[in-house]
């Protein structure tokens, strides 16, 4: 064990793999000293595990109706009570973790690379390329995200796929801004000039030398944005434009429970707790990652 640690913490790594593993190990150690970040990491890990093993964790079917059991308060059998169709809310919340995880993952996969490439291209080439790309970015940034997503869903039509596309459209400009700022600081450094003098194409410089250096600030930003993405998706579901019934999406579940909020409070309240906990987890983790990866902010919080 001790030898593995020494190998990881070696000051002069003998291979690229060792250097990378060593860096990850140091980051993990720094992260583990930050209690809120650890809580966040545990919450996010739990979300992933619950999503993976939903069929084993759920006690009932998420869509199986039992009208004799409708609107029952939380009990030993139904930990979070039942909804207006007699479905077990706990099981629906558990399966809802899959939908939430899918939404945040797809939005990140769609929006982050687009923003990254646009920002890096704008920052690297500068001039009118920069002006046009950043002009478009700023126009999108000047709109409130939720409103933009709502308007796009209105045009595309309701449904979970369109909701994901709409949220991604509203999210990418933030990433483009960050990637551009990062690129501008790297652009004039000597190693970029060295690669350029060796005859590397712009494409090669951006993909091999600039994008990898933007990733760490991107990871921080994406993690911090996750809470916002979850809230927007839940909001779309609540209004009825996101995931459609009978999908156990948390926002849509709250929307169904709205009619019973005065007497059967648990129908709307329980999925809300799931949203709060998961979003808070991503916030904690993002804050912690920023403290560890971005030394400029290190001692602030």
């Amino acid at each position, binding site marked *: 064990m001790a030898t593995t640690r020494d190998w990881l913490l070696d000051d002069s790594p003998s291979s690229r793999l060792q250097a990378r593993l060593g860096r990850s190990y140091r980051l993990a150690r720094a992260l583990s000293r930050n209690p809120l970040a650890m809580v966040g990491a545990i919450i996010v890990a739990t979300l992933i595990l619950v999503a993976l093993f939903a069929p084993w964790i759920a006690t009932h079917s998420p869509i199986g109706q039992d009208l004799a059991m409708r609107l029952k308060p939380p009990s030993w059998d139904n930990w979070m009570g039942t909804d207006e169709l007699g479905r077990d809310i706990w099981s629906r919340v558990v399966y809802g973790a899959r939908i939430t995880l899918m939404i945040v993952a797809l939005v990140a996969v769609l929006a982050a690379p687009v923003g990254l490439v646009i920002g890096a291209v704008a920052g690297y080439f500068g001039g009118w390329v920069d002006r046009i790309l950043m002009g478009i970015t700023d126009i999108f940034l000047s709109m409130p995200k939720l409103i933009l997503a709502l308007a796009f869903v209105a045009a595309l039509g309701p449904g979970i796929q369109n909701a994901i596309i709409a949220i991604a459209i509203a999210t990418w400009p933030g990433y483009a801004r960050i990637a551009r700022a990062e690129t501008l600081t790297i652009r004039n450094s000597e190693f970029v000039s060295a690669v350029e003098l060796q005859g590397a194409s712009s494409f090669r410089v951006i993909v091999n030398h600039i994008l990898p250096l933007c990733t760490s600030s991107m990871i921080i930003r994406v993690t911090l944005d996750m809470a916002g993405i979850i809230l927007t998706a839940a909001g779309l579901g*609540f*209004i009825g434009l996101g995931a459609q019934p009978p999908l156990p999406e948390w926002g849509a579940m709250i929307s169904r429970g709205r009619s019973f909020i005065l007497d059967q*409070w648990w129908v709307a309240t329980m999925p809300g707790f799931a949203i709060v906990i998961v979003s808070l987890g991503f916030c904690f983790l993002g804050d912690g990652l920023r403290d560890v990866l971005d030394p400029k902010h290190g001692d602030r919080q």
Partner: protein
Amino acid sequence: MASEIDSAAKALPTGPGGSSRNARHAWKTVKGVLGVLVAVAFTFLGLLAITFFIGRVVPIDPVLAVVGDRAPRAVYEAVRIEMGLDKPLIVQFFHYVGNVLTGDLGMSVSTGRPVAEDLARVFPATLEMATIGIIIGVALGVPMGVYAASRQGSLVDQVIRVVGLLGYSVPAFWLGLVGLALFYAKLQWVGGPGRIDIFYDGIIEPVTGLLLIDSLLAGDIEIFVNALTHIALPAAVLGFFSLAYIARMTRSFMLDQLAQEYVTTARVKGVSERLVLWRHAFRPILVPLITVIGLSYAGLLEGSVMIETVFSWPGIGNYLTTALLNADMNAVLGATLVIGAVFIGINKISDVLYRVLDPRAR
């Protein structure tokens, strides 16, 4: 008039070369103002491009999006010609910009009235709620942030930090529902959904459209109190979100200031801690704080969309969601445009204020 200008000129400091310096300064100000105006114009044009794109390009058939799929053939054709869809896209866009600039946002399918008229009617309700929300947010958020920074690392600081993060992780619509269940249904501290009890509805003649002010103008205390109980909860929920953001930013600004050497100097001199906090450390953060409050105010417009849906609040957010569910595209785009324009406007104003107030940015 001329004497006014004279006295104003005399009031300005005049030294050697003073007048030319003033002229240069005035020219710089004019250039700055022009620059901001051009930037605002371009951003607004971009906003129009987005709504145009959403309305005309994204839907497979924009005519269908406006008239619905049950419209007869003749209506469909008439609307198609009326919307100018037989012309090239760029012509359509300029036509659209012209319409918007003359205040024509099209007709709403669901209300049967011009969208611009609808928006003017619903906007005051949102303005009233968001304004009370931001007042709550500033009144509580700023002292919380300052206090947390002065006791960095303490339990109170940790609690305020978590409250700040909760502002990013609690769905507004859910908090509104829970609030209704608790404070309206259970405790009966506040009025239910809507701006006012049905019993009082329509008694007050709208002057400003802000119910609280209108009822005071009419001298009707009963209605004022009733409207107050109705606005309390939705405004408090909105206020929570701006509080969370403002407290978080205030804390971070204050920590920056408290780490400066002049604060240590003041403390060594024996200035009381309260004076150090509020007179020495707080003053310099006022300027960035104004930007934060502006951003937060603009953000409340976004939050009000969800809150209004929950509280059946007849504002622009409720109008937008109703239009969304009825696929009333003109109304959706009109509301999007107005919210976007207000958002941009507030951002630019706080930007300009920052430049005017911060001596370094002048």
